[in-house]
């Protein structure tokens, strides 16, 4: 067992974990933050995307011990004051989700996309979210949502 400490959604957390425990399992099962999902086991789908020290990262690709000392934001921590984040609001307005399973990861990936490129073109959005799979929407309403959020920034 390894002792780790990290800040998750603004709260200091300490835990003893098996070194092989993935960050996503630590978040979901130890901290019960189940908004971060698991869609594959090969780091393709992006359902598990969180912010690691402010940058989007696939939490199934990282061991919890590797995140020791870091700051993590999950979908539950994106809108700490109860107001929806502009991306959450835009996904709702534009029908950017159906089953909702990929949505938390998609939103977290979009957070970093818009930080890097505040006024992306449609093409740049499509490229920017191509590390995140959605099987329901055909992506069009997701692209619309990210465009809308960019316009509102």
């Amino acid at each position, binding site marked *: 067992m390894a002792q780790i400490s990290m800040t998750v959604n603004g709260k200091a957390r300490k835990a003893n974990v*098996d070194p092989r425990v993935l960050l996503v399992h630590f978040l979901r099962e130890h901290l019960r933050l189940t908004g971060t999902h698991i869609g594959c086991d*090969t780091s393709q789908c992006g359902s598990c995307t969180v912010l690691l020290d402010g940058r989007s990262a696939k939490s199934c690709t990282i061991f919890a011990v590797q995140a020791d000392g870091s700051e993590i934001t999950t979908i539950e921590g994106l809108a700490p004051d109860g107001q*929806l984040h502009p991306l959450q609001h835009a*996904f709702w307005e534009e029908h950017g989700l159906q*089953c909702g399973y990929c949505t938390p990861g998609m939103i977290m990936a979009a957070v970093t996309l818009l930080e890097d490129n505040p006024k992306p073109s449609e093409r740049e959005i499509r490229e920017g979210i191509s590390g995140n799979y959605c099987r329901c929407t055909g992506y069009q309403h997701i692209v619309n949502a990210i465009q809308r959020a960019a316009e509102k920034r």
Partner: protein
Amino acid sequence: MPTSPVLPKLVGQRVKRREDPRLIQGRGTYVDDIALVGMLHLAFKRSDVAHGRIRSIDTSAAEAMDGVEAVFTGAQIAEFLAPMPIGTPFPSPDHRAVAVDTVRYGGEAVAVVVASDRYLARDAADAIVVDYDTLPAVVDLELAMTGQPTVIHSAFPNNLAVALVPSGTGVSASGVDDSAIDEAFAKAEVVISQRMMNQRLAPSAMESRGVVAHYEPGKGTMTIWSSTQNPHILRTFIAAMTGLGQDQVRAIAPEVGGGFGAKINIYAEEYVTAAISKRLGIPVKWIEDRSEAFVATTHGRDILGYVDLAAKRDGTVLGLKLRLIADIGAYNMLLTAAIPTLTMMMANATYRIPAIRTTLTEVFTNKTPTDAYRGAGRPEATYFVERAMDMLARELQMDPAELRRKNFIQPNQFPFVTQMGATYDSGDYEKALDKALETAKWEALKAERDAARAQGRLVGLGLAMYVEVCGIGPSSSLPTGGWEHSQVTIERDGRISATTGASPHGQGNETTFAQMLADQFGVPLEHVTILHGDTGVVKQGIGSFGSRSQAVGGTALHLAGAKVKTKMAKFAAALLEAHEDDLVFQNGMISVKGSPAAGKSFASVASYAYVPVPLPEGLEPGLSDEAFFEPSNNTYPFGCHIAMLEIDRETGEPTLLKVVAVDDAGHLINPLIVEGQIHGGLAQGIGQALIEEVVYSEEGQLLTGSFMDYAIPRAIDFPHFELEATVTPTPVNPLGAKGVGEAGTLGSTPCVVAAAVDALSEFGVKHIDMMLRPEKLWRIIQGGAS
């Protein structure tokens, strides 16, 4: 006097979804989010050979691990779990939830571990040692039909799961009359003949499957949470397989992260999880890994078609022969054998075809079983017929749109009885075609294509029509029953609760159904709650598949609402001293027609109905009623899809430049949600055309067992889809709604392939089998055969 704001009509409006606030905040509860006190975890040991006899299983190392509660082999499971049931009347081989002596596909379960956490459960499963006598793997479906290289199930010679008698023109209970089909081909001035493969696909909902089962020994009841499209069907089968009554089983579909047909089937893991929970008297959980999903969740499509289309040189279609061979994998699952029969059923497509003959053979192979995948049989029919029509247009040098126009079933011919025995409810195919041509600017697009070609670019256009069968019912067409159920309750405070058996997994029923009730009762949307997915709350139901939620489930809701409204009007009439027929429900009030001031608030009438002093004569207290709705027929939505595609001359890489989809689903409740459904269908249909394919090696090993090898379409793979609609209501239900969940997958696949063939027409290519990977296209450009 109470006043209230004027409420807008909501049906037909782009109302944003009521499901979304929880989902965009990560507050939805999917199966893997459920944790019960004392819950243990299951992991399956799966076969790593495609076909083999189990010589021995050594579970001792697994059992010795600290934290392992139990290990069961297939033989031990068989002591308390009956063989797997199916949902069709076709003959089926013996199929155990966990293999007992023979494995018949790679990934078939051979043992199961119960342990204190999921990591340990997997470790223990890995520690089980299985020794196999490997048998030859049956992989090629046409070879399989000859019994080569071996026979998988001894009771099914030549691996023939189903060898159906012919169907179509001249086929009746009394025999087969070939004269009409023979005459059609004798008269033909041109015959198009093509072998086409509609390849195997992995449905790949982003949430893989998962189950939590909790048997409570004291009460003798079972609660099972599963990522399923149909909790009521799950309850039926779980009760039968665990020896419980249906009243003792509660099945819950919590948030379900997509289904696409693959979560209709009731799976071995659901039975095993339930049976082990009952045996051990503790809650247990199983969550499928993605790599596990590729072998353990049913695949879709995989049907070979030999298509012959007979026509006159003026383009008049005379006859169609369709010989179908389906590779169904190793076993029959819930609906497996029935899916390809839908391909036969829809062979008539949108055309007046005077003579059709189809035959269907279903073949066992050493692969994961197939079952429904979005469209389920209808995309295959559309693909075979539309590809043949496209080839005919090319042969006759006709515009593909004009060839279709010449052969359409005409609006005045509905209801139209097809050569396959289906009765198309309503349609106006030319209207959809014209709308698509207009939206795509077809003539300008052709000029654009020709200009691009003049510059040496490989650009092509494709067009496809489709008609599909949706709103599945009546009961004669579905072994589970072809109805849907709803109960509508006006609560004491005037808010509305309604249940629906149409259990959604992304379709937005909580929104569309609330829109309907808000309009029906003249109350705000926020005052309506739609309950679903829990057999403890929803008394009866069938489920969501076959694009039936709105057409069948929505109608049941509407009818239940109408019953309650009639009763509520009687209470209001007593209060207002008016006649119940003179009342209107609007803006949160029930008032006398023409004098809105003479009214009572909706909530006050509700309150009165629960404390009815005095009780109006002939009325019982309360406001709650239910309806079962069984449609008299299926619905038949239709549409036209157009694609423009460019192929890189150097690399063979295809790029979609334009996609236009015109879909007619009848009346729409929420066009925003409908658009989303069509977008998703287009993505899966285009995915099949361009990048998706399940591939097995000659040894029956799955070569596309993860998202690294099986290509799920990404955002970058698509252009901006252009959507339009025509509206041709169905007479089959009072809403006029036909269903839209699968439509996108029908037209998109053949129109993209047609566009690729058109792009490569300078190389003399007439057909290319999917998927259209660059290497295949590059070879054609280099002068090789397709």
